[in-house]
């Protein structure tokens, strides 16, 4: 067994009954913490490794119980849209305990590998009957290879299908040693093919991601579904999609998934008291999605 990570992984949410994160009925575990910082991040609560306070104005009764309970005096309900002063907040959680409406809550909780395995095992019959299983998502689950190494074998022992959703920016030797042996499927996201654009919108170079992807495909130990998030004005550029398609083709791939943009993440950014440089408030039209798909058709790649 591997020695534990320096930092214990926190979990944003254990989403049971998930139908979108792989085949069948699944439980998706959202790990907190990600090496990337995409400007359109769909799960902004999964970026930072530490706990955060989320605030839902729609549920708030403005009763002031949170402000009264905060020992740091960090909460002022007049402050809009996010009432917590992040610089003073020590994330003690008294506000969340006192909120009657659940409008303010602490995001990020630690589960021991054994406890987590027990929770996800409750739904075993559903996995079995639907061809489902467990999906590791986030955030970035590969950030915690040693934790995974003590968590995943329990799932394998029970015959649970494991799918990994990854951004691909991981330390390959650790991934191959501690995580990959337990995977049945990988959803691997490729966002931008141009290193400069990648640095601009994601904050890091994409070399490691492309190398990891290439290695994963070449070794062929686990089925991989490459996915391309469609972010209007960023990843939807013609040269990017064509470049990704060419890259896939070069690796001999036959199919890929396109993930059309969804603006549901925007309120989540606000609820954490954060700001975002990217903004797009609407869903993509079928025509726009069709156009994106056409770049892949040109390389005889089946996209869905």
């Amino acid at each position, binding site marked *: 067994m591997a020695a534990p990570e320096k930092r214990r992984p926190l979990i944003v949410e254990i989403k049971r009954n998930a139908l979108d994160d792989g085949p*069948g009925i699944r439980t998706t575990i959202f790990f907190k913490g990600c090496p990337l910082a995409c400007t359109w991040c769909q799960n902004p609560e999964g970026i930072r490794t530490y706990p955060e306070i989320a605030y839902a104005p729609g549920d708030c009764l403005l009763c002031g119980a949170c402000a009264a309970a905060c020992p740091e005096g960090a909460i002022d309900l007049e402050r809009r849209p996010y009432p917590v002063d992040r610089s003073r907040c020590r994330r003690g959680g008294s506000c969340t305990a006192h909120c009657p*409406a659940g409008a303010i809550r602490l995001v990020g909780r630690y589960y021991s590998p054994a406890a987590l395995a027990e929770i996800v095992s409750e739904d075993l019959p*559903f996995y079995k009957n639907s061809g489902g299983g467990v999906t590791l998502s986030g955030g970035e689950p590969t950030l915690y290879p040693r934790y995974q190494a003590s968590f995943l074998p329990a799932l394998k022992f029970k015959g649970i299908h494991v799918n990994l959703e990854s951004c691909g920016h991981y330390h390959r030797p650790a991934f191959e040693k501690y995580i990959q042996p337990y995977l049945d499927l990988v959803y691997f996201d490729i966002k931008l093919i141009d290193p400069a654009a990648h640095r601009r919108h994601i904050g890091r170079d994409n070399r490691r991601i492309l190398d990891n992807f290439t290695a994963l495909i070449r070794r062929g130990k686990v089925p991989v579904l490459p996915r391309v998030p469609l972010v209007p004005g960023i990843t939807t550029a013609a040269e990017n999609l064509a470049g990704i398609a060419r890259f896939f083709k070069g690796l001999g791939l036959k199919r890929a998934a396109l993930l059309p943009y969804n603006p549901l993440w925007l309120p989540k950014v606000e609820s954490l008291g954060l700001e975002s440089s990217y903004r797009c408030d609407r869903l993509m039209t079928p025509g726009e999605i069709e156009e994106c798909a056409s770049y892949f058709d040109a390389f005889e790649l089946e996209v869905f």
Partner: protein
Amino acid sequence: MIPPGKQSGRFSNLKAGLQASFVLKLMSLMFRLSPSFRRNIIDEEKGYRFNARIQFRTLDGSAEAYAIFEEGRMKAGRGRIDGADLTFNFKTGAGLQSIFSLSNPADALKMMLENDLFMEGNLMYLAKFGHLSKELAGGQKKRKKLLRLKESESTVGVMDYSPSARDAHPLVHRAVLQSTPHDQVEVLGEPYLGGYRLEQFPRLQAAREKLFTTPAEVCTERPHLLTKYFLKEGFEEDRAGKKRHPGLRQAEALKYILSRRRPMIKDDDLLAGTTTSKDVGVLLFPEFGALALWPELLTVDEREMNPYRISAADIDILNFEVFPFWTDRNVMEHTRHKYGNPRCQQLEGRWVLYFCWKAHAVSHTIPDFAMILQRGLLDIIAEAKRKEAAAAGEEERSFYRALQAAQEGVLAYAANLARRARELADALGDDAGSQRRRRELEEMAAVCERVPAYPARTLHEAVNAIWLCWLALHMENMNAGLSLGRLDQVLQPYFLRDAAGAKSAAEKEALIRRAVELVGCFYLKCSDHLPNVPDLGNRLFGGSSSDQALTLGGVDRGGGSAVCDMTYIFLKVTEMLALREPNVNARFYPGVNSEEYLKRLIEVNTVTAATPSLHNDAAVIPALVEQGFALEDARDWGSTGCVEPTSVGRHMGHTNCMLLNTVAALEMALHDGVHPLVAEQVGPHTGDPAAGGSFPTFDDFKAAYKEQLGYLIDQSIAYNDYLGASHQELHPTPLLSSFFDGPMEKGRDVIDGGARYNTSGAALVSITDVIDSLTAIDELIYREKAVDWKTLLQALEADFSGFEALHARISKKVPKFGGDAAGPRELAQELIDFIYDCYQAHRNYRGGLYTSGFWSMSNHVAFGTLSGALPSGRLKGKPFTPGITPSPGVTDRLLSNIHTIAGLDPLKMPNNIAFNVKVAPGAQDSHTAFVERVTAYAKSYFELGGMQMQFNIVTTEMLKEAVDRPEDYRWLLVRISGYNAYFVELNRDMQQELIERTEFNLAAGN
């Protein structure tokens, strides 16, 4: 000057008393002036007198009026009378005044339901008085109007029954899946019959169309014949003055009805015989509850909810001949008189505590059709004759004579039908269409000459024999929950025998189509009669039909898969017709029945939106064994009425003898035994939470709740046993006893414990609201100490207005039943165990056990609208949750609901459960993908041990549209709690409850 609010009450009560006596005097004047009106209270020709003393008063006695009917005269005035047969007790003077309003009289039954009025005495006098008021207001005018109506016209309003009203088949999805033979399928090459469409069966399509475009009409054939018979032959005593044997008396009456009924064969029907003389008829049982229609006779065709057509002649038959005879001879009033209006009966009359079905029916049981088909009635009659000859005493001899007479009635009816079929055949011309119909009629005549007298040989004979015995049983016992059992098992041997004779693939195909047609005709005939539902019943049991439960699949007596060809024939018909009746239930044994079968059950649910309901053999069978059933008999179970299991043909289980409001006991525990709506001490004093220190710990309060609940259970059981004893005196069922395993050997009617197995089953309504409320009390008052008792009670009193933070805390932070928290699940099991023990401590009037189950028909809505705000956060007047379904909004994950319900111990719920799941069909999913996904949920639920689940596969959007445009959604089938209904026939509260149920979205990409 009268200071407002001070003396105005006294003043208005004075006014109320004056108004009442004025109207009553007006009525008495009319009796003097109008001979036709006078006929209501005196009929020299029939020797009928309506002699009754009726008192009207406010509870505090500040307003009083009376009416005395005596020898054809009516006296009325203000003040008090002695020896009232019926007393109206009004909560307020305004209430009293409102029912004597000349312009817009209030509905007394509605006032009773809301406890603004409660009655002491014979309720049939109330019904009669209600009718007299309406006669006075416009009886003659209404009759003239009805007489002017042409046959084709209808006064039925609201719903557009004209043929132009859209009656599209509901199918959003078409069934498309196909399969290969599995389980016990021998004949069908493709068991799902995926290629079959309703359009290929014009006979069925036309009859279905007719069903949806024909308004229901009151049928007086049965009650009229019944009453005529007793007027002639005597009821209590025969013409010679000798006391009549109840069983023999009932058998002779049934024989009289069956031999004299009009033998009818509907156009293009394949099965001879009808339940009523109308296209869609309402059956009346004046010996039970039909008199509730008395005050509605003149208006039932105009009421908003589920109106019935009625002719002027039928109004008079019921008003002058039928109803007067049964005023004291019905089960409810017989019981009241015999036991001196016992407390348990009074409490039932307050509506909000419990409802005992036995005043209306003991039908919830299943006859032994397999035996009928194998032996034929002549053989059963011969056995009864032998037993009669060998019997020791007169009582026993009479019983066996009754078995014979009842069955002779069925044979007489079959003979009349055979004659009728030949007459119709002979009247047909020589063209090709007529020739085809003539051959069909001749075949029907031959079938009726053969069965049910002799053993059935073909599927056609078998289905028609079942149909004839079925309708005959409905001449004996109310069409409420009498159930069909496992007809796929019963009919499979006849289908196989037919198939063995098929010489070619084409002949085999023709046989399969013929089987679909026969079963289709059977379904349509189960659908063309309705139980009589008074307007009050629209509120209590809205949209309920007669709940003729049919059961398919599961395992056979040896434990092997029973899924066979006929299972799939029935499923195909269920899917194509998508009817409310019969109420189709399917059994599934994980690991024994194939997944292919389960998948087909889900597909039929997807197409019909609501049927069949699904049951887990692996949970139900052990629950029956625990109740003392032999394993083979437990395996041979069928759903009865709604969901309740009884062992087919040998188990008298009156499985819906009561519906008990578990929340009422909570309201009583919160008020030291006083129920707030009833406004009097109902249960024992268990302590007033408002007084500090009454309940130092949560366990103390829980104990108070259990004490109140135990009290209601005891009272409802006492009433049920009284009613059962009345049935024994008034209404034995010799025909049902003839078709049962046990009575022949024991020499006793099923109502006297003649069946092999005897139980009574209860439905506990809305335990979910209790679990959530008790959990909230525990969390808020005892664990978190967030509020004290006083605050919580104030919040409930205020319906949480001004207590929004508390309400939010309850909604968001207190764990609920159906979520992932363990606490509510453990509490649920504790209450279920307690309830089980309460019931099992009693033996019923037939010597059997009481069983508890958790389903609610539609009473969760009725009880809910009568109840106050609850600690669970449910607001005043809102519906409770159906069956044992978690509250809406607890979770958006079906999986959590499933875990919760599957985790409950089936052994402690032997009368079964109803677990509702509303699923939105996914627009983006293919039919196949959707069916497979729902199958995965259902299979997992059953593997985890869940007993029952029932689907509504419909979007909330569509339900809302159906509220706005009912004419476009005539067909929309929904499942309430255990039974099916057409959505547009439900009252608004029930429609809203369905709309608000959690909609689980199982489509990927949502």
